[in-house]
């Protein structure tokens, strides 16, 4: 769920653009030629996945999958998500002025998910990829929810309750994204493990 234009204040908009520029510069250092299409693929899939709706008791919600982007692309995921946000704004879904805030919100979540995903090297347990995949998916969304709430609260105290509702909503999203990301990681592990960041194919063929 991205934030629309016209909600957050000037300083929040400026901070969003500033942090986005820093993160983009930091995560795109020494990018190789063959990575350009790879990042674009994940951006496009991330964009398309926004159209997958899941029915919930009263409403339907759509997948965000920024955690999965982190698991697949590693630190380059920030760029993928930033471009997704940019395209969304260009396509008339709103959000031109909050490209920065949205990038930090979703892209930052992807980076955190990558960090969580990398932690799997420190433990040994069965199915650890699936467990850490789920955790990465859930943490990615949790981070986004926190940033969104933070952006609302720093804009004005009028948004206090709205921010609390946003956090509550993201707890539900966390469960859903965690389950989908975990299942997806499990599937990729069986079929094409080298797609996952830092995961070489351990079985021949």
């Amino acid at each position: 769920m991205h934030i629309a234009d016209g909600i957050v204040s000037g300083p929040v908009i400026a901070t969003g653009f500033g942090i986005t520029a820093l993160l983009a510069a930091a995560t795109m250092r020494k990018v190789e030629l063959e990575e350009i299409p790879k990042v674009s693929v994940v951006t496009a899939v991330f964009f398309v996945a926004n159209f997958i709706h899941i029915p919930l008791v009263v409403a339907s919600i759509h997948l965000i999958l920024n955690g999965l982007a982190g698991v697949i692309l590693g630190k380059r995921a920030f760029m993928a998500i930033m471009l997704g946000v940019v395209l969304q704004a260009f396509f008339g879904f709103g959000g031109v002025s909050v490209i920065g805030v949205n990038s930090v919100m979703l892209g930052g979540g992807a980076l955190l998910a990558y960090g969580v995903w990398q932690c799997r090297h420190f433990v040994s347990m069965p199915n650890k990829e699936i467990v850490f995949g789920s955790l990465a998916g859930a943490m990615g969304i949790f981070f986004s929810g926190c940033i969104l709430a933070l952006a609302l609260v720093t804009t004005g105290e009028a948004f206090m309750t709205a921010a609390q509702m946003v956090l509550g909503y993201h707890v539900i999203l966390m469960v859903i994204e965690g389950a989908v990301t975990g299942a997806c990681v499990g599937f990729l592990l069986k079929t094409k493990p080298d797609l996952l960041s830092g995961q070489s194919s351990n079985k021949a063929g």
Partner: protein
Amino acid sequence: MSLDIDRHAHVESSIQRWDPRFKIASLLLLILCLALVKSIPLILIGLFLSIGLLLISRIPLGFIYQGLKVVVIFLLPFFIILPLTYPGETESYFIGMPYAIEGLRLATLIVIKAIAIVLTAYVMFGSRRFDVSMTALQHLKCPPLVVQMLLFTYRFIFLFLAEMRRMDTAMKARGFIKKPDLYTLKVLGGFVGTLLIRSFERTERIYKAMLSKGYQGELHTLIEFKSEAKDFIKAGVVVLLAIVIFSVDMTTVFSHAEQAWF
């Protein structure tokens, strides 16, 4: 769903003839100024301005309605949440619940602002072919890497969307129904995984084809931009309006006038 923002790029208008470099730069400034407006009368002026630009661009309104619908539906809850939760005491009541006018004002401001900005975005990118707009972005010192990735992604989105629809049909044909349970989520995980693998394998082929045609990390284009006096004048008018809106908002004239309303 109107993902092909440039569907009506062929429509002749003075916005379409405008040099995209000047158009994008000046309209971006206008959008930023609109995003910072804090009073309703001023943002109404902004809204009329964006509607005016839209009418000049002659992009069909039915096309814009689709995108606008999504934005407005997303923002409607604010009309309920903000007035009910606005901090402080209030005297006005609505069906027995405290209903803060100030919260309603804020919600109205947000929705008008969002609409004005979305309309301006349509004018900005809907009036020329997408690749032309992206080339213009590159001329505006946007990193070539970013522009290339945007163009790649733009190409892929339509491919993957078609792929996704096909897979969706296949799942439905096998009797899969989405329900709010863990099984559905697991299936969707596999769905996304399959989509990823197919997309990666497909783009690997595209990439190899590009390499064999001499791709070295640069996109060469025949698109050239010529700017005339007219382009400067159009950009000048928009920049001037943006600055006027911004500075009038800074003087808080309208905000004070607004206080008298409530």
